[in-house]
């Protein structure tokens, strides 16, 4: 493996990412499965990086899951998205950052379609006006939340309390990055590092002391496949995809998996449990699973946030092995203790700073 080769490619795909004044849009899936991550994102952006991140109370789903579940027609999805843009415009922002990859993909796709088919854009504007009376500007800059963290990875590193290093061996942790399919597969130029060797997460890991490992099924989909998971009868396919990835990464002995997609971390986490239940297979070292994290969780850990504030107790595959390797302090007994309400939470769920 020659790294120069990858570096060359990475240097080719450097997208423009805004510096401040972000209009933040939440992810349905992550709000349900990784609420801690979105909280952590805002903490980091606001407290650590001192950025202006605005969240509009009236924004909704982008309808992406419905769209890719084929129950929501394309024009409907476009109009729902147009409404989100309208909210942004009204709030006086122009840098749009969705928390969800499916959304990010949908936004990119829609903007691209509008670019090639202006008549479609016109139609959507009319429909939005008719339905809601709203009008919108297209975002000046569209980036995924992980792009922003990637942009400020050095700043985060500077303030880091921990490094992704095995404190016992001094070796960097071996990290597998999993990029959501809709991040760059549809529009390689819209992703940091492109579609084949995405750098968005790799960059963070490098910066924070870990080592990214490349393995054959790196590009493989986690298997969500929308309808393929949403309907129980199809889940055999969904799990099979993740299994394919685990089988492929096992020989490289990864310490952890990092993701930037809403569904992926949940599936990579839960399917490990299912496969173990059904086939008695585990893919981590000494009989454990491979802990799966969102990039915010990892950033949070690096910055020394409390694991249980980050919501790591919501993982089915235990994350402790990694915490121990890094040497992060945490109280095992508080894992499921719901009494504690940390002070920081207050300002991050309600008001926009």
């Amino acid at each position, binding site marked *: 493996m020659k790294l120069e080769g990858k570096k060359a490619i990475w240097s080719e795909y450097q997208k423009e990412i805004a510096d401040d004044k972000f209009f933040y849009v939440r992810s349905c899936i992550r709000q349900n499965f990784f609420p801690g991550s979105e909280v952590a994102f805002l903490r980091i952006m606001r407290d650590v990086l001192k950025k202006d991140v605005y969240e509009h109370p009236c924004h909704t789903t982008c309808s992406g899951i419905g769209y890719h579940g084929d129950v929501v027609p394309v024009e409907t999805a476009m109009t729902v998205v147009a409404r989100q843009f309208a909210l942004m415009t009204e709030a006086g922002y122009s840098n749009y950052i969705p928390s969800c990859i499916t959304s990010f993909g949908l936004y990119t796709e829609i903007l691209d379609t509008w670019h090639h088919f202006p008549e479609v854009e016109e139609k959507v504007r009319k429909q939005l006006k008719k339905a809601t009376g709203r009008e919108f500007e297209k975002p000046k800059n569209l980036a995924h939340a992980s792009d922003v963290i990637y942009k400020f990875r050095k700043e985060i590193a500077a303030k880091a309390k921990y490094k992704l290093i095995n404190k016992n061996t001094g070796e960097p942790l071996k990290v597998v990055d999993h990029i959501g399919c809709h991040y760059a597969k549809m529009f390689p130029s819209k992703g940091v590092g492109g579609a084949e060797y995405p750098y968005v997460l790799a960059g963070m890991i490098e910066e924070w002391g870990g080592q990214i490992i490349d393995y054959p099924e790196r590009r493989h989909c986690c298997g969500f496949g929308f309808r393929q998971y949403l309907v129980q009868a199809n889940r055999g*396919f969904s799990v099979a995809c993740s299994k394919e990835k685990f089988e492929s990464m096992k020989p490289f002995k990864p310490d952890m998996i990092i993701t930037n997609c809403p569904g992926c971390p949940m599936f990579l986490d839960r399917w490990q449990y299912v496969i173990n239940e059904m086939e008695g297979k585990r893919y981590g070292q000494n009989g454990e699973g491979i802990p799966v994290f969102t990039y915010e969780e990892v950033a949070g850990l690096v910055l020394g946030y409390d694991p249980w504030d980050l919501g790591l107790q919501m993982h089915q595959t235990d994350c402790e092995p990694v915490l121990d390797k890094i040497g992060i302090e945490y109280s095992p007994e508080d894992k499921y203790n719901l009494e504690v309400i940390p002070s920081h939470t207050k300002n991050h769920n309600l008001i926009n700073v």
Partner: protein
Amino acid sequence: MVSHKMNNFGFKISQGRQIDYDSNDRRIANYIYEREPSFRLCIECGGCSATCTTGNHTKFSLRELHILIKRGENKSVRQDLKKCMLCGKCTMVCPRGVNTRNVVILAKQAFQKSDEYAI
């Protein structure tokens, strides 16, 4: 082997359907290569399948069978082979002079032998 605690998730883990070339057994193919070298000459034009008497009655593609044998996808081939009537039209139309008829005969043999002598 860890004992399975829970199993009723309401689905089975799907098995892959890729041709896994490395783990496939190509001894049937080699058996044919040795005895009918023209087997190598196929350019997969499909002439055989187009004229095939059996293919006129049921889903049966000699071209596909040839490829599957070459890839070592023996299971799927074995049953299908029996559908061939050996009428020989394929041999007549083959632009590369592949002795297709003999290929089928040899393949059948190879499969029968494969049981006895574990080819």
